[in-house]
């Protein structure tokens, strides 16, 4: 393609850099680029000089060196002789763990609260508004600290369970709520337990197929099978049968007070619970708002049209309102998930060993590798948030309503 032919072509004057639309965009960009490079150079040179002056250097060798500290809640093998890299891995997994748990519960809380806020029951809807307003208008850090205080200052210490005149007792002899965390029974996998698990997984698959089949049957013959109780039955009966056939291979490891602490079972530490609960209720309040807005964004006419076709309220919800509302709800929901992940970095306030607390906290401190640690930390969060927004873009492309 030719450029705009104009008579002055060839006779290039300096003023054209500013006045000619062809060049001036390059001029501005060039200036911006130069400024950017200058800034980078300035920061870089300073960094070099400062490091040289302090006799430091940038090196990631510390990642391979034993970390030297212990972490209380780890999902992978870790001890004080493991490397700093391993400690960072523990942190990453813990971040993902708490973020995952919080996303799950926040969604549940948010959906319930959001729907309840639209309830015709005045009391319930007012109660939910109060919940939403209170929780989203108070900083999440205060919530985390409050719930943590609630855990540590109000729940009994393990030794309150001790002795003949114990002031606290376990729930069903299986659950213990202490100020160090909550202890729940852990499953013990005996021989043959794999069969039971496999049966259970198969039942889940069967349920999915059953439900699909029900819809298919409806489509083909117009017969509507019940889905409620068969689902339950398929889930429970075969697994239970298999459990007894195999001779009860799965036992429970109940927590019991031994020495200073409860032993056995699964321990969910107080910091994890505080963080998890606080993030859930805080973000739940935001999600409730998103859910409410999403449902309200669907015009009343949709409900009326569906109702006047004879669809029952439950079907109206499932077939007409929800599919539309979800398109509105899911994008903000995903950015709430992102917020949860980012806010989980407040773990550091309660001593939960997430990535900020291990890599950005203890490792940074014990090794003094501030720049390296902060850089790695940012890289981690950036990776997560970029992947989530990539997913979101794909979703948005796929669900956008077809328009003329």
């Amino acid at each position, binding site marked *: 393609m030719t450029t705009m032919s104009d008579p002055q072509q060839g006779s290039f004057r300096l003023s054209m850099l500013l006045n000619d639309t062809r060049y001036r965009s390059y001029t501005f960009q060039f200036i911006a680029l130069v400024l950017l490079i200058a800034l980078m150079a300035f920061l870089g040179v300073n960094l070099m000089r400062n490091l040289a002056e302090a*006799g430091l250097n940038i090196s990631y060798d510390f990642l391979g060196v034993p970390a030297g500290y212990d972490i*209380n809640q780890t999902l992978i093998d870790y001890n004080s002789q493991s490397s700093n890299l391993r400690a960072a891995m523990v942190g990453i997994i813990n971040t993902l763990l708490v973020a995952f748990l919080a996303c799950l519960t926040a969604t549940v809380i948010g959906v319930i609260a959001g729907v309840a806020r639209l309830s015709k029951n005045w009391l319930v809807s007012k109660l939910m508004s109060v919940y939403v307003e209170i929780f989203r208008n108070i900083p999440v850090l205060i919530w985390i600290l409050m719930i943590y205080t609630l855990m540590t200052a109000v729940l009994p210490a393990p*030794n309150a369970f001790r002795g003949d005149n114990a002031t606290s007792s376990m729930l069903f002899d299986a659950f213990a709520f202490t*100020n*160090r965390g909550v202890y729940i029974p852990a499953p013990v996998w005996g021989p043959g337990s794999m069969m039971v698990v496999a049966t259970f997984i198969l039942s889940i698959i069967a349920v999915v197929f059953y439900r699909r089949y029900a819809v298919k049957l409806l489509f083909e013959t117009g017969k509507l099978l019940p889905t409620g109780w068969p689902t339950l039955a398929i889930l429970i009966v075969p697994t239970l049968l298999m459990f007894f056939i195999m001779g009860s291979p799965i036992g429970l490891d109940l927590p019991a007070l031994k020495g200073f602490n409860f032993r056995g079972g699964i321990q969910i530490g107080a910091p994890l619970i505080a963080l998890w609960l606080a993030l859930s209720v805080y973000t739940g309040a935001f999600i409730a708002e998103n859910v409410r807005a999403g449902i309200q964004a669907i015009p009343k006419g949709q409900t009326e049209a569906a109702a006047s076709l004879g669809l029952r309220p439950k079907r109206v919800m499932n077939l007409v309102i929800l599919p539309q509302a979800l398109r509105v709800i899911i994008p903000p929901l995903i950015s709430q998930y992102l917020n949860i992940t980012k806010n989980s970095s407040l773990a550091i306030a309660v001593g939960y060993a997430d990535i900020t*607390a291990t890599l950005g906290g203890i490792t940074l401190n*014990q090794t*003094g590798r501030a720049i390296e640690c902060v850089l790695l930390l940012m890289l981690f969060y950036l990776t997560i948030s970029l992947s989530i927004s990539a997913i979101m873009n794909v979703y948005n492309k796929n669900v956008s309503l077809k328009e003329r």
Partner: protein
Amino acid sequence: AATLDDVKARGKLNCGVTTGLVGFAAPNANGEWEGFDVAVCRAVAAAVLGDPKAVEFVPTTGKTRFTALASGEIDFLARNTTWTFSRDVDLKFDFIGVNYYDGQGFMVPKSLGVSSAKDLDGATVCIQTGTTTELNLADFFRSNNISYEPVPIETNAEGQQQYLAGACDTYTTDASGLASTRATFENPGDHVILPEIISKEPLGPLVRHGDNDWGDVTRWVLYALIAAEELGVTSANVEEMSMNTTNPEVARLLGSEGTLGEMLGLDAGWAKNAIASQGNYGEIFAKNIGEETPIGLARGLNAQWTDGGLMYAPPFR
């Protein structure tokens, strides 16, 4: 990078202390900082600026203290910090001396019935992160082949809270820290400090590596305080001693003879000011953490070498 000049120009010394450890550094009800570490800061300010009140106290946690010093936010860190190889060499700091020889201990409630740290198998331990004690703890339990659960905390205040609430069975830090923490309890008698001392913790003030002039100033202020005790100079008699002393070392120290102050880039009365405002090492110890105080620490290793302790100031000559 001449910290001394900066401090003089600014007219204030920026001194890093803990966020609150009674007896070592804590604000009183009026918001004024007091304590053993605080006194060292004030002595440096008195020596350099002639005014013990010309100090900005910057509260730091175990984690933030080193970055505060490295970034220049503070000129001087007096925060019961242990002198270790890696801090000196790898983190590029200079410890100017030791003002308290300490070791790491454990505190447990009496009711727990524990009498030795080796009985702590399976215990939950409150531990300040970013400290040497965190690393020692891991080593101690590993070498004794027993297990524990760490509860990481940021500040002594939090540790105290958790410990009292029973969220941890035992609290471990420098023995001096334990004593001072216990002193603030409602019933200090219900808690015991276990006999094992699991590490050496020589606590001392530190400055950035590389500024030797500033390092010298602060180092010799600290030694002046120690030497003063050895030489019998106290806040009460310092004025008089500087006038008429027969001991030439005292005269050099207090600036009535020689040019030690000038060599440091300070005025002649530098040490006199420091001692006059804060007292000598012994006075400072007694006033803040000594046996007369609720904290009640004995001099022990921190006695003068003449009394069988480790406090030993090089000669002022």
